[in-house]
């Protein structure tokens, strides 16, 4: 964009300076020029600071990896309907209100959008729901959303999801995981469906009513409590401190947190997030423990860190990371 009189715009000059600085240090004359330009007008200094910020916002770009292919990337990452656009939302809510009037009152959810949402392995996705609630899906997760005039219902078909439920008077949000059913008003909680061990529930705020099925008594779970709901038998509950809860929810930032888990357990956890599996044949190695915060989608990086600190032998192939005694 060129300003009046054909002079470059403030943004252009700012971008030029940041590019010059990125090339290397300035000589005395250039430094004096930059200083004079910055001091001449608050907008100059502001545009320059902003240009620096925009450049710095790409500090994470190396994580895209050297094999980053722009064309392929655009195709694979078409913006999806993570956020309903406002015109559509207005239209749909209008429809719901109209339906409510015809039915003679009440808030109708019927016209709100239902659907299925899923994540691929290694992906985290935020799904805002029509009622203002938000569900965040962890790796390899599938949910089905169905809202009717009387029920807000989300089925967790596979995986793990964090629910941030907004209040609707008289209409709790229901989460269904197989035979287990949860009901919540305004609450935040994490649900993980584990095929062999049943359902793990962690409540961060509010409270969640658990209907465990199988003829078992229903139970109310308050904030800062974790509950394991197995296929049969007792429900196990234990308090969860803030630090522990934070670790269990690290996946929302694409991370895995370990606190004394064995390498075997760590390998199992990493297998949820990547097709490249960590393989440890030696039981002596597998029983070593690990603590720290790691990128969930980078098993090789994790293994490299472990190999370095335990002096292990590391072999990386396209679909496996092998750790063994040196």
């Amino acid at each position, binding site marked *: 964009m060129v300003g009046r009189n054909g002079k470059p715009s403030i943004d252009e000059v700012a971008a030029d300076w940041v590019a010059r600085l990125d090339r290397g240090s300035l000589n005395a004359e250039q430094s004096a020029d930059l200083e004079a330009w910055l001091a001449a007008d608050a907008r100059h200094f*502001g545009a320059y*600071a902003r240009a620096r910020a925009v450049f710095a916002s*790409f500090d994470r770009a190396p994580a895209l990896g050297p094999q980053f292919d722009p064309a392929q990337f655009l195709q694979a990452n078409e913006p999806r309907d993570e956020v309903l656009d406002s015109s559509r939302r207005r239209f749909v809510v209008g429809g719901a209100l109209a339906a409510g009037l015809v039915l003679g009152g009440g808030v109708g959810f019927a016209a709100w959008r239902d659907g299925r949402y899923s994540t691929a392995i290694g992906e985290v996705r935020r799904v805002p729901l029509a009622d203002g609630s938000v569900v965040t899906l962890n790796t390899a997760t599938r949910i089905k959303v169905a809202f009717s005039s009387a029920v807000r219902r989300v089925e967790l078909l596979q995986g793990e999801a964090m629910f941030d439920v907004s209040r609707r008077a008289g209409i709790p949000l229901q989460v269904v995981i197989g035979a287990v059913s949860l009901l919540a008003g305004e609450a935040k909680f994490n649900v993980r469906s584990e095929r062999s061990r049943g359902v793990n529930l962690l409540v961060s705020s509010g409270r969640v009513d658990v209907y465990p099925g199988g003829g078992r008594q229903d139970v109310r779970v308050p904030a800062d409590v974790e509950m394991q709901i197995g296929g049969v038998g007792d429900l196990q509950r234990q308090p969860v401190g803030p630090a522990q809860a934070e670790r269990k929810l690290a996946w929302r930032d694409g991370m895995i947190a370990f606190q004394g888990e064995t390498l075997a357990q760590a390998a199992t956890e990493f297998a949820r997030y990547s097709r490249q599996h960590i393989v440890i044949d030696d039981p002596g190695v597998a029983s070593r423990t690990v603590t720290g915060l790691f990128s969930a989608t980078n098993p090789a990086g994790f293994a490299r860190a472990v190999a370095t600190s335990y002096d292990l032998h590391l072999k990386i192939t396209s679909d496996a990371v092998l750790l063994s005694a040196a």
Partner: protein
Amino acid sequence: MLQVSNARATWLAQQVLPHEAALRSWLHGRSSMMMEVDDVVQETYAVLAGMDDVSGIQNPRAYMFTVANNIMLQHLRRSRIVPIESISEIEQYNVPDRDPTPEQRLSLQQDLRRIGRIIAQLPPKCREVFMLRRIEGLSQREIAARVGISENTVEKHVAKGLRLLMGAMAAGAADENPDKGLEQQRGYGWKKRKAVD
């Protein structure tokens, strides 16, 4: 002398830039004020970049809105021709939004997808240089040697790419809604894409 430390640039990138599109649309809504939105935004960054210490700022989004509002007030008070109503309108201001919760913030993966999408939409030459610089981390000199162009040309591509990205950020590419951004910048002759539902 005026300078911007790397730490401050990073703070601005992480805490302020993601809310800039919201600030701009809020400013557009009060455009009776006869101040250019770009000017207010630049002066807001000047204040935030010039502060001695930002560690005490609990809610950068609210802080940015407050700074922008004060800048408008100052301008209005200095210019005598402005009707009184606009001053009272600005004085009765409310920061329009609360701080986003972790679930409302972009996840790291979404953030990475956004970065990838923005880079992918740069014009080809610019993009090649920008990728070598920011993804592979080569210096401008190393890029010149690798691509076989002069260092001056590399610098020009970096500047042009950055300028385009600054425009994209203004249009909301850093915002929480990733569906906006470069494709809104018609003037640069970039590939238009169909609107997403």
